[in-house]
């Protein structure tokens, strides 16, 4: 197995184009365990961490650009980013230990295509766009369309996710992500729930997005839950309806981490709780702005 560390996207793509067995990696926090677990070694691993654009985080006007290989600990430590996307920052801060978060990246978390990836529901509720470099130049794809099934993506072999674009949240908007794991740390999500809300001046929900992880082959957007929340004042009935919709949207499996029933039940609970947290965040921020 060869190791290559290209410094440009073109170089990286050329390596992939020349070797159908080569794979890219950023933190290798999934790749190495998979190889230890019996996945055949590829002929080449292409390290993306030497490519500047994949390692940079920038705010240009109202758009964040997050390099696909940036360690998630950089995001959780970025106060401005975290204030804009507290839920996404939390999700990024839940992936494994500090040791893992110093290597793992949003790009890796997405392209590993695990149904349980923590950052993906949080990216999806924030309408994140993946910028993908390929043969015809760059294409911009909603994150929800990148993963097609467990371990499967819509990327061609020589395509690379370069960065994620996230529009700064509009006024009165915030997000939250919750996951259920048996321990407090170091586990894979049994259920994950991301919620983004926009509240109008009266505290009513003017927009809502809900996405669930680990309850289906890919991350699930839950339009029925979004509809239940939208227009409501987050009263108990609306929250219960959203929870029920989330449970209904699940298409989980029984496995070593949880049962079908458990995942359904908890998906609703986490959706309801995440909505509450997102709303609290908006109210707190509005309150602070009102004070100042």
């Amino acid at each position, binding site marked *: 197995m060869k190791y290559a560390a290209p410094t440009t996207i073109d170089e990286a793509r050329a390596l992939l184009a020349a070797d159908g067995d080569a794979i890219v990696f950023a933190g290798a926090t999934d790749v*190495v365990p998979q190889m230890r677990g019996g996945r055949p070694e590829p002929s080449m691993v292409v390290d993306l961490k030497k490519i500047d654009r994949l390692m940079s985080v920038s705010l240009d006007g109202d758009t964040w650009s997050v390099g696909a290989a940036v360690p998630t600990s950089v995001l959780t430590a970025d106060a401005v980013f975290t204030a804009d996307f507290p839920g996404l920052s939390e999700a990024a801060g839940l992936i494994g*230990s500090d*040791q893992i978060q110093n290597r793992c990246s949003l790009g890796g978390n997405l392209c590993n295509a695990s149904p349980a990836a923590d950052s993906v529901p949080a990216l999806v509720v924030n309408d994140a766009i993946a910028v993908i470099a390929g043969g015809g130049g760059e294409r911009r794809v909603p994150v929800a369309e990148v993963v097609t099934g467990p371990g499967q993506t819509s990327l061609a072999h020589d395509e690379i996710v370069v960065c994620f674009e996230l529009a700064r949240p509009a006024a009165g908007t915030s997000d939250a992500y919750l996951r259920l794991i048996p321990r407090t740390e170091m586990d894979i999500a049994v259920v994950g729930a991301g919620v983004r809300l926009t509240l109008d001046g009266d505290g009513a929900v003017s927009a809502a997005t809900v996405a669930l992880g680990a309850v289906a082959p890919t991350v699930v957007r839950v339009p029925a839950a979004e509809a239940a929340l939208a227009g409501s004042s987050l009263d108990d009935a609306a929250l219960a309806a959203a929870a029920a919709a989330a449970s209904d949207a699940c298409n989980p499996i029984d496995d070593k981490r949880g049962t079908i029933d458990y995942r359904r039940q908890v998906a609703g609970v986490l959706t309801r709780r995440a909505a509450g947290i997102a709303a609290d965040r908006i109210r707190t921020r509005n309150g602070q702005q009102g004070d100042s």
Partner: protein
Amino acid sequence: MSRTHVTCEVNGDAVDFLTEDGESLLNALRDELGLIGAKEGCGTGDCGACSVIMDGRLQCACLIFAPEADGASITTCEGLASADELHPLQQCFLEGAALQCGICTPGFLIAAKALLDENPDPTETEVRYALAGNLCRCTGYDKIVRSVLEAAVQIRTPA
């Protein structure tokens, strides 16, 4: 078998070694450089026994391909003490009986150093979460957490 030449800095020393590309930094440190402090407990980043600080970031050496270290600066457990003095964390671990079998100790010390470098006055909860990537099966963590908190006090208020 072709091997790659890697040059880096380990515990302040300029070093170089030859490695197969697929080898882990952990094996390179242990086998090529004789730095046996970092241990392999799992090989998959789940136990933290191989923790090192590379370019200012706490990482599992078992997840790092050895050639990635080219040009990097690495701190291992062996780099904590000075010639005549242990690091306060090491001293507090000894006095606080924070180790039993000792296999996880180097990883805990490095993870704790990374924590205290960033946060010199952590709460118990912050210590526990910062060390959650390091498994200890002997101590139940009680004496480790106490020792890290005590070391933080000593570092903040040098005698």
